[in-house]
């Protein structure tokens, strides 16, 4: 056989669509219909090698059901225990909701772009989250707490529909104690709620930051993020200093399936964290 032809028998390279089994270590209910699943890879080598950055996500797979893209919500300095805060919304997440500690989920990742931790060094960080949007920002808070002196003011503006929908409330006091300014609000209060009532973008009126020294990191419903950006721009924060975490339908997370495209960006590769200056021609455009 001539050497001009490629040999017939060659080993296929590893398929990026293959999941790795991981065991559920803990399930922590956070709010109605939302729990945090802490996972650990079954394969010790995989568990030891895995690293992620704040803002990235994994694809979680239940054989026979399907896959979902879930942001990592745990401490990036503790990659042995991977936290995923999941809202039971569709068939896959609801099936995950029926699992117990000790059960196995398929995991592949991490994928996507990260929050600009390095660009934020020495600056103010204003984290603006709505609802479950706080989950992908929690790793930022945990990373900041490890190196608090590396940043100036760190402010969390956070809101949910009702007090019962706020995530991680048990940690707020500790965050506050360690130098994170926490401002929670709700759209609809109740008799026992003593906190703020009002929409998240309005929380900007409670803080005053030097625009030139500030990054805004926001994650939540797109309509909320639109008004957050409006408030940030009104305070003269540069378009380059505003970072948005986008969400789109994802089937592969590796840039093959085409589903997650938003303009020229693949949310799984150039995103989910995108600079507003890059997003501006397309963001807020109807049906885009």
């Amino acid at each position, binding site marked *: 056989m001539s050497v001009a*032809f490629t040999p017939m028998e060659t080993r296929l390279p590893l*398929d990026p669509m293959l999941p790795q089994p991981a065991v559920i270590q803990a399930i922590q209910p956070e709010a109605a219909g939302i729990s945090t699943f802490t996972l650990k890879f079954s394969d010790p080598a995989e568990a030891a090698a895995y690293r992620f950055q704040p803002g990235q996500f994994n694809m979680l797979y239940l054989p*026979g*059901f399907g896959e979902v893209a879930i942001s990592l919500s745990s401490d990036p300095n503790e990659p042995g225990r991977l936290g995923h805060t999941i809202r039971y919304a569709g068939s896959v997440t609801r099936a995950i909701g029926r699992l117990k500690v000790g059960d196995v989920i398929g995991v592949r990742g991490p994928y996507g772009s990260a929050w600009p931790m390095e660009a934020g060094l020495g600056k103010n960080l204003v984290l603006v989250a709505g609802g479950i949007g706080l989950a992908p920002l929690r790793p930022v808070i945990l990373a900041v707490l490890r190196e608090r002196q590396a940043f100036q003011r760190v402010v969390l503006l956070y809101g949910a529909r009702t007090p019962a929908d706020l995530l991680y409330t048990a940690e707020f006091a500790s965050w506050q104690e360690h130098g994170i300014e926490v401002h929670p609000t709700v759209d609809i209060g109740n008799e026992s709620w003593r906190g703020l009532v009002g929409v998240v973008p309005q929380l900007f009126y409670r803080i005053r930051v030097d625009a030139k020294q500030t990054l805004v990191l926001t994650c939540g419903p797109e309509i909320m993020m639109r008004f957050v950006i409006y408030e940030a721009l009104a305070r003269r924060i540069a378009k380059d200093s505003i970072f948005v975490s986008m969400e789109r339908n994802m089937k592969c997370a590796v*840039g093959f399936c085409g589903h997650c495209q938003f303009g020229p960006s693949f949310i799984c590769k150039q995103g989910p964290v995108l600079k507003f200056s890059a997003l501006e021609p397309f963001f807020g455009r109807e049906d*885009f």
Partner: protein
Amino acid sequence: MAESLPRVSARVLLPKASFQRVFDNLQAAGFTLLGPTVRDSAIVLEEITRVEELPLGWCDEQAPGKYRLEKKRGSRYFDYGVSSHSWKQFLFPPRRKLFSIEKHASQWTIKPNENGPGRRAFIGVRPCDLNAISIQDHVFVTGEFRDPHYSHAREQIFVLAVNCSRPSSNCFCTSMKTGPRATSGFDLALTELPEHFVVEIGSEAGSEIMRDTGWQLATAFDLGRAAQVTEQAEERIDREVRTDDLPQVLYDNLEHPRWDEVATRCLSCTNCTLVCPTCFCSTVEDSCDLRATVSERTRVWDSCFTLDFSRVHGGNNRPSIRARYRQWLTHKLASWIDQFGFSGCVGCGRCITWCPVGIDLTEELQAIRTKATP
């Protein structure tokens, strides 16, 4: 004086009577041949073994939403344009099992699908389609992630390209700079003459396949006749598409009224994405057996025109045909350039031919380019 094998980049003359020898050499080397043949009133790409199975003497007539074949007398094997099939179905199959998982308690056994299709020879690849293959290579092989099945299958392909002699009226490869002559990416490239082929040797594999075919070095006269075929093909192409203002002209006109207009015609039937040789969107299907112990994940072709494509929990990001047509066109002609460094369109004209309502993307682009009336 005949050498046994031509050198790479040589151009040789091959008598048509010896064309079968090329097929035989390929099959002897373990290649399954895939090439054009007539079936169901169209030219399709299928497994073939003999030269007689090629569309000898057939011509096509194409227009927006129209495709007709006609048998003329003649000795031409490749005197037609491209048809609904493209080579993407062989490298990026419409359905492909990715893996299966067997679950026993907490033990998972993951079995990736490692079946490959083996050596295959693509017979009659047009320059636009050669370009399309190269574009898909950038998606699946040379990007940040690699599709193992695609790259494995791709390495096993022998490309026998054919330079076009009769482009269809929907072709515009000249505007997209993808034809009508192949310049690289092939093992052999043929230009058809009445009784011969002028063959350009593109690789050592190509050279090897010319063994005992009675080839001779092409004379200047032969090369002149081949060049004429290409010139005539270029002249036949009368569709001209301006591309110098892309991607910006589409980015600047995302609310142009033309999108509303085309949405009244587009059926969102996905034909265009099916026949397009560069479209690569896919989805995954999960299934399991009754005991839920063995499950499979399969990748299948998808289209940005389907209603489900942009469905997320709680709604849909592109619920209207207007939004989906806009997505397809701006991706193909504009965002693709930002994503990959070149256009996603190779000017093959298939989407124009196979659109049931005859939408012509070049016409849509030109209409959008024209300023909207206030």
